[in-house]
């Protein structure tokens, strides 16, 4: 029970979320869906296939991962920072038996849950674009959740460091946007020179994009287990760091 105390914060967030459900869903899903439409449908019709996939098919699984990234990271930056500073939610919670770790886990799992929900909705909408995910996609969901945990924890670290909302511009412009553009969502990394490719492959979103594409079409031509294990390690490490940073922020 003690280790599940964080669920109460998760429930608090979900209670609030249910009140503004439409606004948050549109906020999280709008961008990836518009990208899919513009790039996949608009641009993709003129392009040749990549590894036997149409450009729309190539693009769709990666955009699903980007919606996880954005939903999770936005929740634990703008959302969490509001709770931290304006609403003093954490201050109030720290008067109760919940501790820093519970707050961090509650926020991270909440962010990850929102990420996963965005992914599920996106995946469910893909057939509208003529993209049919394979049955393996179900096994992808835990991977997407893990990726949500990673980006939520990353966002929470930014929140712990933030002095104002402006600080998140760094996070978005210098981290999230480059990850969105260079993690193999929009173009295949195979064609890149081997040395620079290593760099791109090591970006935290890249293995998730690759896994997403593999599971969506049931083509396991890359070492999927290694990618999952590596991402899992990185995720655990980031969660641990987020607890440390949040403690530094909240305890003097």
């Amino acid at each position, binding site marked *: 029970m003690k280790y599940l*105390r964080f669920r109460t914060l998760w429930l608090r967030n979900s209670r609030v979320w249910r009140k503004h459900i439409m606004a948050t869903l549109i906020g999280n899903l709008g961008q990836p869906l518009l990208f899919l439409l513009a790039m996949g449908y608009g641009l993709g019709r003129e392009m040749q296939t990549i590894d036997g996939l149409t450009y729309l098919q190539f693009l769709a699984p990666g955009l699903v991962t980007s919606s996880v990234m954005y939903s999770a990271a936005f929740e634990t930056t703008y959302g969490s920072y509001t709770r931290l500073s304006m609403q003093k939610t954490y201050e*109030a919670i720290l008067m109760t038996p919940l501790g820093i770790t519970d707050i961090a886990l509650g926020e991270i799992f909440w962010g990850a849950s929102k990420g996963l929900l965005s992914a599920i909705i996106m995946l469910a909408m893909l057939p509208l674009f003529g993209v049919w995910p394979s049955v393996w996609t179900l096994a992808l969901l835990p991977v997407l959740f893990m990726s949500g945990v990673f980006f939520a924890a990353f966002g929470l670290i930014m929140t712990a460091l933030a002095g104002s909302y402006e600080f998140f511009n760094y996070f978005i412009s210098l981290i999230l946007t480059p990850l969105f553009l260079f993690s193999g969502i929009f173009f295949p990394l195979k064609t890149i020179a081997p040395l620079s490719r290593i760099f791109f492959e090591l970006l935290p979103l890249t293995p998730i994009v690759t896994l997403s594409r593999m599971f969506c079409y049931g083509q396991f031509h890359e070492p999927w287990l290694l990618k999952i294990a590596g991402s899992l390690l990185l995720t655990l490490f980031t969660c641990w760091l987020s607890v440390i940073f949040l403690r530094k922020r*909240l305890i*003097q």
Partner: protein
Amino acid sequence: MTSTQTPPQPTVAVAPASNDDIIVQVNGLSKFFGSRCAVDNISFAIRQGECVGFLGPNGAGKTTTINMLLGLVEKSGGTMSIMHFDIPGQQQEAKRLIGVVPQTDSLDPDLTVEENLLTYASYFNITGRKARARSADLLQFFALANRRKEIIEHLSGGQRRRLLLARALINEPKLLILDEPTVGLDPQARHLIWERLEILQEQGTTMLLTSHYLDEVEHLSNRVLILDHGKIVAQGVPQQLITQLVGIDVFVIEGTTAELDALEKSFKQCQATTERVNDKLYVYTQEDCSRLESLLKNSRSWLRRPANLEDLFIQLTGRSLRES
């Protein structure tokens, strides 16, 4: 006159009964922020059923001490326990038994009045029917029952404060920590809160109260601890402390420098201490000096009133502004 030293604490091991009713025990507690000493080796105890007023100018170390008890600030030295739970070692266990009314409004603006209480209850693992019943009782007690479904934004300052109090009581705490519970409220709202706090006191709730409203502290506390520069400069029953350290009555006299000089001299006939602030003379009498009132008939304005906690506070901590 008893000095401003800390009276010796009752030794903990005298009798098991006296040990059991200690709610808070702090020994040699210190806190340094860098090289600045915010709390300097303080010791005190709070017993079952007491309401202890924690006083001091801004920056005296009150909030730092409370935050150390709550685990929000790490101590630099000393020991603390709350109901025999070691702090910070057994912080979570202790927090089950504590209710806190924070100085800053930390109500959840995303939730309604009732949802605020239910959500807070869930942090204490109080859920379902039990939480709803407790929340309904508290809303009734704090005259908020008709605002149950209201969003926080629509509440008045007094209603918010009452809701903060209700929230602090959701876990039926043994110790209630009140940090400026009526700051910014009108007299009606303050009195309503005082009434409720008195009822809780009668029910045996132990309280630690900080406030800059010294009438509030005088009204509610059985005992005060006065902090300044991180040290306890006085502690005891308010009225006794006032009589011992300030006196019985206070004369406040206005006049020209020459008049006040003469009066200051005359008041030496009586057992009294004097203080000059701008064009005012303050006389703190340690005995009945009403016979000297005839001297004042030519003064521009004067009054005699009983000495109060504010006089004590100013006497111990000075008149200069504390602005960090």
